[in-house]
């Protein structure tokens, strides 16, 4: 089942996924609590993420999400817009180019859209290079553009 914003593939259909576009996903908030948890989990307590006063005096004017938190949130967004059924294991094999052109202010909402750039048959599965663009509500440039390399195994 697909609508105009989400796509769904059975495992074998991934062979024909190249060029498919999907999204945008629904807006999802990035609350400060999530940023704080990410800081604790990664040990990245850069004040720009967690110190309200220092961040207020920074060029950003407020606390911002870690770029890698934004990147990690691809999963719930893809769950909504890019579904693969019938695969055994799927893994994040890597990333190609990633940039964070604009910050994600604490408490703002983001969404993603994407395109399958490349499909490779691995014999026991498929490797997909998926370009994902993250935007923030009210923003005029993307907050993240990333090429994910996903592997889906039978």
């Amino acid at each position, binding site marked *: 089942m697909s609508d105009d914003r989400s796509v769904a593939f059975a495992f074998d259909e991934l062979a024909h996924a190249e060029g498919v576009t999907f999204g945008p996903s629904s807006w999802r908030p990035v609350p400060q609590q*999530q940023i704080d*948890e*990410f800081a604790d*989990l*990664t*040990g*990245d307590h*850069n004040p*720009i993420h967690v110190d309200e006063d220092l961040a207020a*005096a*920074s*060029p*950003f004017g407020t606390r911002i999400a*870690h*770029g*890698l*938190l934004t*990147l*990690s*949130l691809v*999963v*719930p967004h893809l*769950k909504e817009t890019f579904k693969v059924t019938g695969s*055994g*294991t*799927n*893994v*994040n*094999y*890597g*990333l*190609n*180019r*990633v*940039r*964070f*052109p*604009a910050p994600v202010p604490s408490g703002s909402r983001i969404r993603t859209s994407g395109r399958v750039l490349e499909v490779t048959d691995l014999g026991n599965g498929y490797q997909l290079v998926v370009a994902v663009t993250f935007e923030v509500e009210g923003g005029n440039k993307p907050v993240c553009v990333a090429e994910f*390399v996903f592997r889906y*195994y039978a």
Partner: protein
Amino acid sequence: MNISPFRDDDRELPEVSRRALSATMAQFPLLLGETFGPSGWHVISQQDIDDFAGVSQDDNPIHVNKEFAAASTYGQPIAHGLLTLARMVPMLRQVFSITDATLRINYGLDRVRFPAAVRAGDRIRLRGEVKTVTEVPGGWQAVLSLAYELENSVKPACVADWVARYYLEAQVPDSR
């Protein structure tokens, strides 16, 4: 620029083979080509993995379901690649620092791969090289080629080129 042996409680390596780099913003160009690390060993626990699954909402069973993971090619739960990647900060702090930078920005990443899976309880450590140094308005950009070594593994857990920007004054140009 200062190159000193990195010391921690783990003395298995001769100290001379561990390089902790520190420099001021004025010394930034001198960093080009320098290597740093390895950092101390750093454990990734199942609790870390579960917490990361909670924060990222990535509850792929290969990370959080013991039975599923046991039946997989990995034999037990493995860390999210992005968890491993994101652990760069505490490890990097041990072996690479710009002492007078007031703001550090993760500007992006170039090629990232996760050649070996990190199982719950495994230890990783970081080493790297300053691949490029570029002046940007108000600061410096460095591309750090990072290798996350995995204990008892020939293949690293992660290799990544990290694009970091360091600013002296809190003046990040709007054009970042």
